[in-house]
């Protein structure tokens, strides 16, 4: 997703073991989980449409 619009989108893969405090802050207890703008979360590998829904909801669209 980031590659489509790198000016506005950053996509991180976060190694939870190396970033335990960040994981704790977001309440990450299972992986994979996608955190959107530090708030909404989508657990698991889900279809594109589901992730897009979560993102749109977070962006208020």
């Amino acid at each position, binding site marked *: 997703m980031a590659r489509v619009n790198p000016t506005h989108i950053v*996509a991180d893969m976060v190694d939870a073991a*190396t970033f335990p405090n*960040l994981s704790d802050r977001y309440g990450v207890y299972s992986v994979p989980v996608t955190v959107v703008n530090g708030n909404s979360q989508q657990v698991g590998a889900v279809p594109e449409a589901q992730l897009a829904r979560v993102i749109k909801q977070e962006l208020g669209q």
Partner: protein
Amino acid sequence: MAIISDNIRPDVERFLSDMQEPVTADFYPHSASPASEPMKQLLLELKEINPLIRVVDHGQAATPIDPERPEDIEGPVTSFSVNGQFTGVRYLGFPGGQEFTTFLEDIVDISRNRSVELSPATQDWLKNLTEPLHLEVFVTPT
């Protein structure tokens, strides 16, 4: 001791031989993280395997990207750019286990500017986004 063992090096060479454009890995270590040295070594070994991978060691921790806070940067961060342009893709930590394959795939995809596997509608929507979107996918290297 090498990060990429001799028995998998030929596979890594073969995989990275698909690269086309140079990819720059901007590496930001973290002095207190035990993952920093292995990550730096991994990047240098990958560069040795395929010189289309360029490594820039910035020698200091990454600047947080909103909504990250400074204290969230607790390990090494690697961001990827092509032709001087940030791709929007970063790796926080060390890509161990099964994450290593994904890491290599990302490098090759970026290098070949491969089409993203998103529907045209989603791509259009994302292209027209003008507000910041920060996606953080948490994984555990196994």
